[in-house]
């Protein structure tokens, strides 16, 4: 049997397990699990909204010529798809997982600042309502791409200030969430839970939280400058007034590259939890993983201009950013090596979380390797703004970040609900996702290498075949995602009851709590013996 059922351990209901009911439980929520659930539900809704925009994009690109969307709306779809997926789906999903797991993993009763936690979540629905509402104002939604480059972005209509305000709200929400994570980890760890005993998921989130605090204000500054250029007569990015549009790109990518790691570092943490469990071995090179994560975070601050090699920059600048970008391959390689070494001679089993983690390992590495190709300046001159770039970052973000989120949900869902989900359906979800994500994105490498530009609703006929393959992959991938909420819903409603330790190879404090855990996780800190048993590295 792959998982431990109820007979393995008895439930231990906490005496403090009283909670508010009805709508008040959610609107006034201060409990980390409730807020985590709300974040995850919000992320799921955003994933399907952003996904439906992707379906429209792939529908339009099914054949050359203009079919269904006018070009302005197509541009709005590419812009909104990215904003929805980055700020509405992946980031809230990570915050949801952090809310659920960090207190349980460090031996804390809850997040350190529960009311702030409530506030940082409830900002989000308003921000995204505002952003989505901007699609319906005169002039249409924002259409300048998620990067919002001037001068194109400055030509936006009424949607422009709405987008800027929505981004400010998302940024504030992220910063408050990040502060909460750092305060919780630094202060509420159980006595005996030293930094180097913390689970990798907690470590990666700690580093991610510092990144968030450092770079979200940069984005806020950049978009505020756009706002004042548009409404208050400044000329930061207007050449006619002495400004420089390229300066915006520098500022944006100083935020934007660390943002990429904000999206992916927690994925490294989740995969570092899953692989040891299903290999039934401790993680290989725990400390190296921690230092590799910190190195990646540090390097993320000194590589930003690789996104803009073609704007024209001194040779020394090109060399610096090329080489610093290539350096990232070293700590990332350490991680891939350590995950592989963890599996070596392990007693492997392939439940859904492990399948998603393995898919992550292979496909994220493909995204990483195409990233290395893009880091080479002369090659980048050819790839810039082509579908090759689209293929690259989708490999990093979909089978990378999104698969890790799904793997994480499948890993911890039995703990959250006390029920085992339908493993067969989850494996179907995995196989359909893995097959079709490749059908969707792999051909985009060929399209890019052949010269197809990104962000266009129409294309030359020679790109038709691979676009059709990509679109078919997209529709199939999109449809297969409906299995995910169904599996979760079914699991929440019932299933085979499981004990404390849902997976036989699982280690960590969360597996010492009952399934589902009590309303307040660790009202009393866990003993040192439990902590030692949990930190099996």
């Amino acid at each position, binding site marked *: 049997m792959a998982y431990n059922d109820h007979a393995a351990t008895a439930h231990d209901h906490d005496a403090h397990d009283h909670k508010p009911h009805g709508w008040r439980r959610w609107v006034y929520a201060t409990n980390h699990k409730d807020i985590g659930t709300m974040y995850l539900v919000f992320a799921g809704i955003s994933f399907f909204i952003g996904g439906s925009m992707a379906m429209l994009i792939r529908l339009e690109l099914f054949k050359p010529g203009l079919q269904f969307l006018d070009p302005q709306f197509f541009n709005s779809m590419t812009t909104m798809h990215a904003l929805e997926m980055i700020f509405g789906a992946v980031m809230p999903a990570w915050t949801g997982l952090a809310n659920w797991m960090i207190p349980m993993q460090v031996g804390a009763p809850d997040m350190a600042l529960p009311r702030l936690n409530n506030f940082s979540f409830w900002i989000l629905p308003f921000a995204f309502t505002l952003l989505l509402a901007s699609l319906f104002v005169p002039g249409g939604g924002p259409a300048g791409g998620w990067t919002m480059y001037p001068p194109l972005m400055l030509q936006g209509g009424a949607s422009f200030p709405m987008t800027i305000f929505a981004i400010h709200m998302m940024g504030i929400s992220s910063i408050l969430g990040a502060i909460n994570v750092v305060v919780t980890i630094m202060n*509420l760890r159980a006595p005996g839970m030293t930094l180097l005993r913390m689970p990798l998921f907690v470590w990666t989130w700690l580093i991610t939280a510092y990144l968030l605090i450092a770079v979200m204000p940069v984005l806020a500054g950049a978009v505020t400058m756009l706002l004042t250029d548009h409404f208050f007569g400044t000329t930061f990015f207007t050449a006619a007034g002495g400004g420089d549009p390229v300066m915006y790109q520098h500022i944006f990518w100083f935020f934007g590259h660390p943002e990429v790691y904000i999206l992916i570092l927690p994925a490294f943490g989740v995969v570092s939890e899953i692989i040891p469990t299903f290999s039934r071995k401790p993680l290989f090179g725990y400390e190296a993983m921690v230092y590799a994560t910190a190195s990646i975070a540090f390097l993320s601050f000194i590589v930003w201009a690789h996104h803009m090699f073609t704007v024209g920059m001194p040779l020394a600048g090109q060399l610096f950013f090329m080489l610093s970008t290539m350096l990232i391959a070293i700590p990332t390689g350490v991680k891939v090596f350590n995950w592989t070494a963890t599996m070596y001679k392990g007693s492997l089993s392939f439940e859904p979380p492990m399948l998603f983690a393995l898919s992550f390992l292979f496909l994220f590495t493909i995204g990483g390797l195409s990233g290395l190709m893009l880091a080479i300046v002369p090659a980048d001159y050819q790839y810039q703004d082509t579908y090759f770039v689209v293929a690259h970052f989708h490999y990093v973000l979909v089978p990378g970040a999104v698969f890790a989120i799904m793997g994480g949900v499948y890993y911890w869902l039995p703990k959250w609900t006390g029920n085992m989900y339908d493993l067969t359906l989850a494996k179907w979800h995995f196989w359909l996702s893995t097959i079709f994500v490749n059908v969707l994105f792999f051909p985009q490498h060929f399209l890019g290498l052949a010269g197809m530009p990104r962000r266009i609703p129409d294309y030359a006929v020679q790109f038709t075949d691979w676009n059709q393959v990509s679109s078919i992959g997209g529709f199939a991938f999109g449809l297969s995602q409906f299995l995910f909420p169904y599996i979760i819903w079914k699991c929440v409603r019932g299933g085979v009851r499981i004990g404390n330790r849902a997976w036989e190879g699982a280690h960590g404090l969360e597996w010492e709590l009952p399934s589902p855990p009590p309303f307040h996780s660790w009202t009393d800190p866990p003993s040192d013996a439990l902590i030692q048993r949990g930190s099996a590295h």
Partner: protein
Amino acid sequence: MSASALTVAEAGKRRRGVRRTAITLGIIAAVFYVGFIAMMIWRATR
């Protein structure tokens, strides 16, 4: 589930730690956030 309760002194120390870290990070984040925008306004009016 094996657990050991915090003493009053430990709980107090923890509360002070939470307050100190939250205020420090809050100030850093606010200075970053407002600082960028203030610097931008200052540069625009020079």
